């Protein structure tokens, strides 16, 4: 491995930015975030980067490394070609704040718009029983570390900027975890269609490809939710049944 490498880092505020080159030493086992920290400590104290755990568990250090959405803490330098500069940019889908940091607050608002967990009544002893196999289906979604790389790469958000119409893959995963929870009593199908824009997802699987937790976002979350929406809102027999029963229930 080379003993030093060049990192081409995006610097600047609120889209008024440019690349700046930094050369720094590279040692065995280093990840991109190590290089950024080294540059920060030795050459640019004010280089802005968001990070916490440096172990791939908190999902804070998302960025675009050589154009690919990655967690900087889990991207080893020995997987990159160090004979040419390594580019490090902020996630381009979200409003830029400074250097490698973006404003991801929209994600928190989008999550809040999804109806929360509502448990079915507990057993007599105040607890619930469920099979491990049912728990596992939901646990896959709950591995999500909210790094928002799936949101970053989703073209509905990235190219079409439909933030007010589509909650993005992260929140489809969140909704799927709630909907498939065996003890959840809430229904989110109508919201998914009308408020959360599930129809905009055209299952190109870009989100699945970048997920650092290997969640099968499209196959296991988005598509089953789409089916659920169709079953509940478009099935002609069910619809007829609903119309008739509604008719009886509420004359208005």
């Amino acid at each position, binding site marked *: 491995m080379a003993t030093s490498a060049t990192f081409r880092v995006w610097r600047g505020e609120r889209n008024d930015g440019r690349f700046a080159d930094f050369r720094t030493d590279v040692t065995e086992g280093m990840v991109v975030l190590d290089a950024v920290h080294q540059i920060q400590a030795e050459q640019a104290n004010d280089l802005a980067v968001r990070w916490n755990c*440096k172990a791939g568990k908190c999902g804070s250090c998302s960025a675009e490394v050589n154009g690919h959405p990655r967690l900087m803490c889990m991207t080893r330098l020995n997987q990159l070609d160090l004979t040419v500069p390594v580019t490090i940019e902020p996630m381009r889908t979200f409003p830029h704040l400074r250097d490698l940091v973006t404003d991801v607050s929209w994600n*928190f608002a989008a999550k809040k718009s999804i109806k929360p967990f509502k448990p079915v009544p507990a057993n007599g002893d105040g607890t619930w029983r469920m*099979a491990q196999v049912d728990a596992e289906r939901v646990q896959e979604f709950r591995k999500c570390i909210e790094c928002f790389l799936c949101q970053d790469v989703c073209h509905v958000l990235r190219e079409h900027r439909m933030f007010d119409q589509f909650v993005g893959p992260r929140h489809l995963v969140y909704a799927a*975890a709630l909907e498939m929870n065996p003890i959840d009593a809430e229904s989110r199908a109508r919201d998914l269609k009308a408020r959360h824009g599930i129809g905009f997802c055209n299952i190109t699987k870009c989100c699945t490809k970048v997920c650092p937790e290997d969640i099968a976002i499209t196959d296991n979350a988005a598509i089953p939710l789409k089916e659920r929406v169709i079953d509940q809102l478009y099935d002609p027999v069910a619809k007829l049944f609903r119309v008739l029963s509604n008719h009886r229930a509420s004359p208005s």
Partner: protein
Amino acid sequence: MEYQTHDHDVLVIGAGGAGLRAAIEASAGGVSVGLVCKSLLGKAHTVMAEGGIAAALANVDDRDSWQVHFADTMRGGQYVNNWRMAELHAKEAPDRVRELEAWGAMFDRTKDGRILQRNFGGHRYPRLAHVGDRTGLEMIRTLQDHGIHQGIEVHMECTIVQLLVDDGRVVGAFGYERERGRFKLFRARALVLATGGIGRAFKITSNSWEYTGDGHTLAYDAGADLMDMEFVQFHPTGMIWPPSVRGILVTEGVRGEGGVLRNAAGRRFMFDDIPDNYRAQTADNEEEGWRYTQGDKTARRPPELLTRDHVSRCIVREIKEGRGSPHGGVFLDISWIKERLPHAAEHIKKKLPSMYHQFKQLADIDITREPMEVGPTTHYVMGGVRVDAETQMSTVPGLFAAGECAAGINGANRLGGNSLSDLLVFGKRAGEFAAAFARQAPKGAIDDREVDRAATEALAPFERGAGGEGPYQVQYALQELMQNMVGIVRNDADMRRALDCLEQFRERARRVGVGGHREYNPGWHAALDLHSLLTVSEAVTRSAIERRESRGGHFREDYPDKDPQFGAFNLIVRKTRDGGMEVSRAPIPPMRDELKTIIETIK
């Protein structure tokens, strides 16, 4: 000066497990609640917790009860715990876990569909409710997703630099938000500190950058007592290679699932040194240890599952005596279970997915095929703000503390799994009693001059500019010092030298300068964190000098034995009138007879 001002009845500082749980409870108490996060919501250090939440649900072994959990916690803490906190914790943890399920947590299940529990160091029975090896993530996400619907006002990426005191009572806090670098003034009737630990004072640590002892320092500066600061936990198994991952945690769950520790000669050295007070409950041969990890109730636990302080010291001994692994650690091997189990590789990946992923990605090691290299890493501080067991109020009225930044429950050493349950049990209590306090407390007066002074001080690094002392360089020097002089093995001479060095670092910290502007400027944040790091480092060092014995996480090579005299008190750290740091002794109140009986019966 003008500041962005926020009014809350209760302000919770810190948004990990304890802070979120406190905020939820305070909000349920009918008061307005503000929650300050140093990072984004849901990113706090709780996400790193792996193994599980200790609670005597008795789902897997019906011999478990709060009494056994209490006795285990006290034994692990070497009996200098606040026994009332240990009692409340053992009694209330099961309800707190079930409550998480009611809020959407998805734990692993037993065959009959209940919450599954696993073995862990120092716990007599399988007690840890868990989700693979990512229990902390499950817990913080559950609290977060529930919390956002409880009317709590969340202030993300905001750091508090000073508490505001009026007539001996805490009435507010002053800090800055990272995004724009603007100051924020919080007025509150009660405050809860839930800022976590101090791991960043050491070079090798499993802790994230946020863990700079902020809550400890805020409380200390506001006049509150700190307690047990000499007790720092060095987790026995951190990654050691490659250098950039040094310190990252390797969960105790690896050993709970059958992983064994070996030295360079292949010997399971943990069998060589089993402390007397654990001999009766520890396996004396490898076969029995294996059976224990596979759920055989007649078997005793393998010595790898002894308490963390002991395992760490055994590892240090192996390394020091030349029996370490190539990169200066020892071997932790889970791959050997393929001799015992069919489909072992799949089993390991299922039980320890994050560990598999972590080693594969960061160290090119496949843990299903080869052993890991591990060594001790700074993990947790048992010491913290001295609090009342029932209410979690500190010695300063209106100031509460919960979770890692509070002291008491863990004594001299914390058992794995007791942290997550501590966050829930005492987070809830802190929130409940802070709300009760706020309901009857009038709004205090904020001293504008004090606030202006804090603002001027916070901006001083900019005045000195980029030509000043580098903030990172001071931080690195301090971490190096604490690691080498006040680490796992301590002695009087080293620690006295450390105190001198800390004084020099304080001088250097006064000269620290940063360039650029206030918006999201990490150099500035690093400069502001130095005060906390220096304060907690001094508190740890002074307390460790004073405790002339070895107990739990505190090991003195010049006093290698436990001394019953020192078991009769806790050490208190307090700020004197002239700003100096004073260490004193507080006798441990006598334990209720009923609890004594429990400890004597459960051996």
